[in-house]
């Protein structure tokens, strides 16, 4: 890395650290806004089933390359928001836990077997599963917290998990990375099987 870039990266890391260190501002009359944001940010990362599926979206996108590498992580939060809207409205969706577990199984398998469907099919598949994740988030908004900041928080956290998946998935470009990526997909799929078993247990 060039010295200039390294210095900039250092500055950015410092700024992120300072930003992350900040306490809730409590500057506004509305209460529980900071709590809403934090709950939203933590919600997707608090369940391993969500984490596995969202990272798998990034892994698959990275494996498929352009334009899927950014189309899939865009499609997921958008459709997930629609699922979340259904959850907010109290519209029931049967088999949410099964759908979430199935998303990890299928998306992990897609990475493990290096499936390359057309972009539309891949986006539709990702979108279908996103509804289940969104519905689970939407129904679990804690009472008294800001819905807007909760929403922003969980969309941002979801996007960051996709970005993490994409980051890991970049190993696909190296000869040693391809089998490693497929193994990661298989691990995600195995995790999905565990959650499916738990959903039925």
């Amino acid at each position, binding site marked *: 890395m060039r010295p200039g870039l390294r210095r900039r990266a250092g500055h950015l890391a410092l700024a992120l650290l300072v930003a992350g260190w900040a306490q809730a*501002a409590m*500057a*506004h009359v509305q209460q529980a*806004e900071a709590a809403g944001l934090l709950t939203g940010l933590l919600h997707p990362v608090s369940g391993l089933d969500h984490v596995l599926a969202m990272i798998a979206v990034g892994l698959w996108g990275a494996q498929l390359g352009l334009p899927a590498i*950014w189309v899939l*992580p*865009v499609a997921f*939060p*958008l459709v*997930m*928001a*629609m699922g*979340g*809207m*259904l*959850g*907010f*409205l*109290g519209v029931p969706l049967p088999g949410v836990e099964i759908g979430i577990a199935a998303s990890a199984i299928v998306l992990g398998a897609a990475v493990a077997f290096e499936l390359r469907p057309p972009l539309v099919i891949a986006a539709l598949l990702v979108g279908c599963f996103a509804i289940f994740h969104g519905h689970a988030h*939407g129904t679990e908004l804690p009472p008294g917290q800001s*819905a*807007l*900041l909760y*929403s*922003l928080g969980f*969309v*941002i956290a979801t*996007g960051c998990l996709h970005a993490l998946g994409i980051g890991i998935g970049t190993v696909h470009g190296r000869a040693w990375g391809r089998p490693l990526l497929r193994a990661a997909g298989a691990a995600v799929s195995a995790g999905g099987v565990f959650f499916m078993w738990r959903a039925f247990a």
Partner: protein
Amino acid sequence: MTGTRASSMRARALVPLGLALVCGPAQAHLNATGMGPIYDGLLHFLTSPEDLVPALALALLAGLRGATCAKRTMFTLPAAWLLGTVGASTATAANGGSFAAALWFVLLGALVLADAKLSLRAMTMLAALVGLAHGYLNGSGMGLSSNSIVAALGLAAAVFVCVVLAAAIVVPLRSRWARIVVRVLGSWIAASGILMIGWSLRGS
């Protein structure tokens, strides 16, 4: 040390001492100076995501469209916001503000995501509409007074600074990946707007 130099130094030391002695009260409490409402307006914008995020989304869109659009937006949006706030200050408090904000989230987020090729005129009109609508929602119920006008000025100043900063980050971006990152941010804004619509509908 020569006598001349020493007396010169003494004279220099006396100047700040003299200034310190003649200073007036600190006026640290902004109510006394009338500056308080400026910060009320400024902080209202900075701590209200339903106002802040659409302004940032518009700045991202303007930045994607280039320097001319960004320059036009950075003046049009605060001016329209100020006009809307002052114009609505005699109106009764508006209902449905969160639903309207949600619609702006979806529209502006979708435009950023699509990297919509809006003309300069369309961008100006969009900025004016966003500013007037949000200004109206901010101003309604405030009541027309000198304090509310000063608060509106603070609000418009905050809008201006936010738009300038966000657009200034996006305008120089040329690489494909950097622009994709901006478009992904747009998708997040649109997704949050969809969720807010659900929340608003549940509330109503």
